[in-house]
């Protein structure tokens, strides 16, 4: 038998002549040694089938919570089988711990508190919550609108220094990733399209495809999604942390509206920077497409002629108009989720997640609405 080297614990079990099971424990009964003894003891009890169990505990020189738990377990085990347990010679201090454990409140786990609700009640509650959320969204949009109008009428009251800082973080710092994603999207799309179009000898129409897809859809959409992941989440986390740290309350009691003070600079920054980033995404997207066409042997001038014939001014302008709205959505949703944060650190995480998820959904839905509007405007 291999015993744990770091703990000196000896455990012996034997059956006495009058049919009783006797355990003898010598040494330290602590959390590292008890596990083994526990299993050995239970095996011995299972084998012996003796109703009387005696533990000679006089050799226990140290006994912690796990040792006491073992003794309590043996006691309960014996009681459940109508057997008897006798513990002999347990030191007074350990005896006291043991007595504390077996007297007083029961040691069986309490059943989890379940709020039982009927199905109808659950549906009612869910509907109430949806309406409550909707109400919060409407009041936030109203507040934001009022604050934006106020900012337009009194531009000197806007916190321009904060706005510039946020614009830098949201716009300038996001430029590399927007450029990279825009370029690769253009490149990949052109590359994928060149093969099937080549089968019909129509490779030059890659320019049409890239022009329409990047300027109308992919440029604004990818930029907005990158911003939702980068800045929408950051806004939610920042404002959420401020909420948790009572800073939002402090603003309110100083008479500073959180919407005017925190949300307006972020919305203005997003409003300006999102279209700018979209312009960059559009340009590098087209560059990505042109690289593919160049590699297929078309000179650049051909690409541009084809692009000019395929794309009217409506496409880039329509894309930019969309990106204004995407910018507002990213900033407003991020801030709203941040301000709605409940208490606790996990609440900030929840706000961040829901900010990104809701703004991406809203961006895609808005994009769909714009597609319909543009369809009727231009056919």
């Amino acid at each position: 038998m291999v015993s744990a080297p770091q703990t000196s614990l000896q455990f012996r079990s034997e059956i006495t002549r009058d049919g009783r099971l006797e355990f003898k424990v010598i040494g330290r009964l602590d959390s590292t040694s008890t596990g083994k003894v526990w299993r050995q003891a239970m095996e011995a009890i299972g084998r012996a089938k003796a109703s009387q169990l005696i533990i000679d505990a006089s050799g226990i020189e140290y006994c912690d919570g796990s040792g006491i738990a073992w003794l309590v377990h043996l006691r309960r085990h014996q009681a459940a089988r109508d057997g008897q347990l006798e513990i002999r010679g347990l030191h007074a201090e350990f005896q006291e711990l043991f007595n504390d454990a077996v007297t007083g409140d029961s040691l069986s786990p309490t059943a989890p508190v379940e709020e039982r609700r009927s199905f109808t009640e659950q549906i009612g509650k869910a509907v109430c919550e949806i309406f409550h959320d909707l109400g919060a969204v409407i009041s936030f949009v109203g507040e934001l609108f009022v604050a934006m109008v106020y900012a337009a009428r009194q531009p000197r009251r806007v916190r321009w220094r904060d706005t510039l800082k946020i614009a830098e973080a949201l716009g300038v710092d996001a430029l590399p990733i927007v450029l990279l994603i825009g370029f690769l999207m253009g490149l990949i799309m052109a590359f994928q399209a060149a093969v099937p179009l080549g089968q019909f000898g129509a490779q030059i129409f890659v320019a049409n495809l890239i022009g329409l897809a990047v300027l109308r859809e992919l440029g604004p959409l990818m930029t907005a999604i990158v911003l939702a992941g980068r800045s929408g989440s950051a806004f939610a986390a920042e404002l959420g942390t401020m909420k948790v740290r009572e800073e939002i309350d402090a603003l309110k009691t100083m008479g500073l509206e959180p919407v005017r003070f925190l949300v307006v600079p972020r919305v203005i920054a997003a409003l300006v920077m999102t279209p700018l980033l979209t312009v960059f995404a559009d340009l590098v997207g087209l560059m990505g497409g042109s690289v593919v066409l160049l590699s297929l042997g078309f000179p650049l001038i051909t690409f541009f002629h084809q692009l000019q014939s395929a794309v009217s001014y409506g496409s880039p302008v329509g894309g930019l108009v969309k990106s204004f709205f995407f910018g507002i959505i990213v900033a407003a949703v991020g801030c709203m989720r941040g301000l709605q944060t409940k208490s606790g650190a996990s609440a900030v995480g929840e706000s961040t997640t829901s900010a990104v998820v809701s703004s991406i959904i809203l961006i895609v839905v808005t994009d769909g609405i714009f597609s319909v509007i543009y369809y009727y405007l231009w056919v």
Partner: protein
Amino acid sequence: MAGESIIHVEDFTAAYDGTVILSQVNFDVYPGEVFVILGGSGCGKSTLLKHMIGLYKPARGKILIDGADVVAADRQERMDILRKFGVMYQSGALFGSMTLLDNVRLPLEEFTDLPPEAIRLIALMKLKQVGLAGFDNHLPSALSGGMQKRAAIARAMALDPRVLFLDEPSAGLDPITSAELDELIVSLARNLKMTFVIVSHELASIFAIADRVIMLDKKVKGIVATGKPRELREHSDNPWVRQFFLRQASLDG
């Protein structure tokens, strides 16, 4: 106590989601006194404070600060009321992205038309009053807990309000820092004749600073005792109150 009260709370009832936390609370705070709201955890001290400063609407009742009704105020009236008091939150709630000077300067910039150099001078004076001269260019994260709370007091008194509300000023501070903060509160109350409303459960600090206390209790959902802390300890007819002051565990468990 003689004279007009500066804060008047009448028939105040607070409830969250239909659960009543406090009911039928009535008290007055008089100008220049250090008034402590006291009680065990979860008895509604902070709830009462947050209602008094207008963050929550009470289920019923009236709260007047310097004669103005906090509950019924419209937007413009509310702005006027907000200028009558400053608040120090439990965590300090300094704006983490701003230096101490900017934190203290913020309310002055928003609410006054003082020239920038005047605002800067006032902000520096406030920081000096709380013993933080020379720390004006520090970010809150670079300061210890006690210094952050003092900076928060400086910000709360930027507009020289008549009343300062402090939520658990000694929470999270060691006894010495906590005692220093108590000294600051007492000296501000004496020298600037400011009224303090403080939520606390720190006995040592209560005896050091409080002119008068009200004691809230979870079971009663209201005030169980009002008076000077020493008198309550010695002579309260409520044994539970005496026990609280003598720091004994409750007899009924």
